[in-house]
């Protein structure tokens, strides 16, 4: 068990810098999910922690020990790979015990640890099988078992659920979370799936173009996204964005679509008329006879809820999620509740919070 500290991690492949200085402090026993679209640098970051890539700059510190220059095997970590990387010619037990065998542990000790991990994962019956005789979920468990037997300071997960079908993914997700809590091992989990990120992580690192766009708890990321990228990435359907300008001396926004809406949480700093991006989640919009007329283009009934796609008079697209059934066509007046607005600077996309009271 250990903490993990990343300080100013940079990585260049030739002339291309893919990580521009990432800082992260992981507490003991914490589960951190690194999430982002493909190409954002999340896998590279994980591989740097693992020691499979050398960073171009910065330090990796595990449990207070600087491991930046150490080989993967010397870092006291374990990794679960996307395709599991189980050796096809070894049995489950041999696969799980291979790392221990290399470390020269006595046979009895290896057998004990493998047995314990197998019991923990419910795969005792599979120990003599070979990987090709296992289902996807069973392979996943073996890959977990291989990590567990090493009793590492740090677990690294590289999109371990992406090869499973949807149903199994949900099940294994819960299982990984349960196991991680029970073992209390500090963990880094990389995924591109926001649901996986939200459900698994104590905290999320949302990566965007080689930066950590936001590091926060799932609910914080959802409720107070740090910029328009995070706002659009987390939540489904994605957050609506509307153009507007700062009005009434910072106390309101004048939407391009027409209405002027007063901020519920206080005035924003900035010049009158400064361009803003206003975000609002589809589920926070609601029908209101006094609202903006939304011309419906597509209605997706999902049973317990309905997703409506439409356009505002100015032509801006808007997605609305309503509970239960909804009209199939026509024009629906929609209200934008002031308390649900997210305010971002139009240029940088950064979140714009109310100015502290003077």
């Amino acid at each position, binding site marked *: 068990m250990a903490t993990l500290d990343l300080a100013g991690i940079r990585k260049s492949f030739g002339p291309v810098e893919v990580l521009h200085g990432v800082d992260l402090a992981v507490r003991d026993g914490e589960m951190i999910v690194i999430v982002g679209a493909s190409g954002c640098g999340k896998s590279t970051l994980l591989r740097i922690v693992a020691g499979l890539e050398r960073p171009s700059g910065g330090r990796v510190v595990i449990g207070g020990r600087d491991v930046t220059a150490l080989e993967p*095997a010397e870092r006291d970590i374990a990794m679960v790979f*996307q395709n599991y990387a189980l050796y096809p010619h070894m049995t489950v037990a041999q696969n799980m015990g291979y790392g221990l065998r290399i470390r020269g542990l006595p046979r009895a000790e290896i057998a004990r640890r493998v047995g314990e991990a197998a019991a923990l994962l419910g795969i005792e019956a599979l120990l003599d099988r070979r990987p090709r005789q296992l289902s996807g979920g069973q392979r996943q468990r073996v890959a977990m078992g291989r990590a567990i037997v090493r009793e590492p300071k740090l677990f690294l997960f590289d999109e371990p659920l992406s090869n499973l079908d949807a149903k199994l993914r949900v099940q294994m997700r819960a299982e990984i979370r349960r196991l991680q809590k029970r073992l209390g091992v500090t963990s880094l989990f990389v995924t591109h799936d926001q649901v996986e990120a939200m459900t698994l992580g104590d905290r999320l690192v949302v990566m965007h173009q080689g930066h950590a766009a936001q590091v926060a708890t799932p609910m914080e990321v959802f409720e107070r996204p740090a910029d328009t990228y995070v706002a659009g990435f987390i939540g489904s359907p994605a957050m609506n964005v509307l153009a507007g300008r700062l009005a009434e001396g910072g106390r309101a926004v004048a939407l391009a679509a027409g209405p002027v809406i007063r901020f519920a949480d206080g005035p924003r700093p900035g010049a009158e008329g400064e361009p803003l991006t206003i975000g609002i989640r589809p589920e926070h919009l609601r029908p209101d006879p006094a609202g903006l007329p939304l011309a419906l283009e597509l209605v997706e009934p999902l049973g317990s809820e309905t997703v409506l796609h439409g356009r505002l008079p100015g032509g801006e697209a808007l997605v609305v999620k309503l509970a239960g059934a909804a009209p199939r066509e026509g024009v629906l007046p929609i209200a934008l509740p002031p308390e649900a607005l997210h305010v971002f600077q139009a240029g940088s996309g950064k979140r714009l919070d109310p100015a502290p009271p003077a």
Partner: protein
Amino acid sequence: MSTTDSPGGRAGTDWLAHAVLLLGVVLFALPLWIVLMGSSHDAATIGRGEVPLLPGPHAAENYAAAWGRGPTGVPVARMLWNSTVMALCVAVGKIAISILSAYAVVFFRLPGRNLVFWSIFLTLMLPVEVRIFPTFKVVSDLGLVNTYAGLIIPIIASATATLLFRQFFLTIPDEFVEAAKMDGAGPLRFFRDVVLPLSRTNMAALFVILFVYGWNQYLWPLLVATSEDVETVVIGMVKMIGSESNTDWSLVMTTCVLALLPPVLVVLLMQRWFVKGLTETEK
């Protein structure tokens, strides 16, 4: 099962397929059958041109004679031994040096790796036959004429097998290497514990191909193995025909059977790997 043909049409075409295939089998087998039967008759019968198609009474004495003394004085047993040594050494030697160099090329950032690769690639192009005399000169300068080493090593000097292993190694997932690094397995350990076991099928296929290749060499042994000590059975057999008039044809047949049996057996016994290896990897 083909679902697109009508039952009547299928029976008709099946009959045709059987006929064509049987004809092919017979065409392939006929020369072998003649030699096999001929080897059980005495020389006079063959010499009269009777071409027996049924077994005769002299099989035991023909094989015993060939095995022990051989028509040209060199016992066929000795030739078979030489051929076996050559075929085994070519197969094992080539697999060994190829798998090692392919491993180095694929799993390391070897300095000058591209140069190594392309020079290896070049060797694919030139069969031993086209560089035969200069190669002979090298072997002769090294004093290796009429030795097993001189017979075998120049045959090993090409890179087909290296390329096959390289191709196969490139299909080994990166994650295996990464997992090995996590586990603390060094390159040699990874080679022994993971790469070698995974290469078993490829090695078996190559073994068949190279064994046959080594056993069947003709031009090179003709040049470099002129002494009876290292004469191979294929060369020895052709030499027996040398002078038409007093050729002992039944012994030629006997030797012919002995010369073709080992590689045929290797191919038949290892047919599964051989076919897979040949079509999936060769060239």
